[in-house]
């Protein structure tokens, strides 16, 4: 499974990692809803750390699509909230 961490490129991970990522993802959503910045940041760092640890960097020469897109590691809680609202954080 190919994962793109925005700002860092693509990583290939075992598909079995998906469930683990999902669990962290759900927790992050909870923190964003609650507005808990500290836990949100920790969750995002954990998510990205897991991918970097378990994944293999996809060579720059590869032109492939990713199945999962992970936000940049410095995305703020405010930006995350905008992603969830219809405003959209990043102009289309």
């Amino acid at each position: 499974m190919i994962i793109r961490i925005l700002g860092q490129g693509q990583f290939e991970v075992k598909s079995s990692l998906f469930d683990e990522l999902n669990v962290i993802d759900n927790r992050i959503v909870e923190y964003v809803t609650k507005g808990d910045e500290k836990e949100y940041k920790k969750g995002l760092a954990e998510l990205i750390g897991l991918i970097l640890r378990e994944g293999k960097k996809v060579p720059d020469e590869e032109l492939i699509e990713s199945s999962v897109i992970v936000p940049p590691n410095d995305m703020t809680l405010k930006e995350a909230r905008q992603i969830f609202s219809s405003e959209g954080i990043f102009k289309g």
Partner: protein
Amino acid sequence: MSLLNRMGAVITAKVNKIIGGMEDPRETLDYSYEKQLDLLQNVKRGIAEVTTSKKRLELQKAKLVQSSEKLEGQARDAIQANREDLARLALERKTAIDSQVEGLDREISTLETEQEKLVAAERRLSTKIEVFRTKKETIKAQYSAAEAQVRINESFSGISEEMADVGMSIERAESKTEEMKARSAALDELIETGTLEDFTSQGDPIERELAKVTGQSKIESELARIKSEAGK
């Protein structure tokens, strides 16, 4: 919906916009290639901009460090002349300046990170563009429109996704640089008018009060240090 799903949707929307309505993929290939080169230029401009901003902050920092040293000297002279009141005044200003220097250090390191990210993005993108160019030429030479469509689809989505990613990185780096530019202009003004001690950083009233208390104890300990160095 999960954060990853939302993020995926944001990127898909961007990719679709980049791919647009392609009819004969062979023509779209050239058009996309032009876009890729434009984007590469944008990354280069972005890097230059971040570098300039960083240099500006470094200059500002050097200026502030110099004033801090000067004030320290004045405090010493004041102690020699038995004017503790003047020494205290100098140290008050010095503490205010030192906290600005700390703030600048943080901003400089943020810009450094942005710079590194963009340099890495430039490297990735330029490699991918080169691969894309080769593929595009092969496909144009060997395949009919229908076949080309199939052959190019994945590489096309792949490079478009990279373009969406890089475009976003540039946008974010720009907004960070803009923010710092505004703050740095405000700081410049304060340095010039010499009213730096009035500069109240953001934060709630409690934080500001706490900062004052910490500042006060810093002033006292600096005063004690200078006094003992002067043998007084």
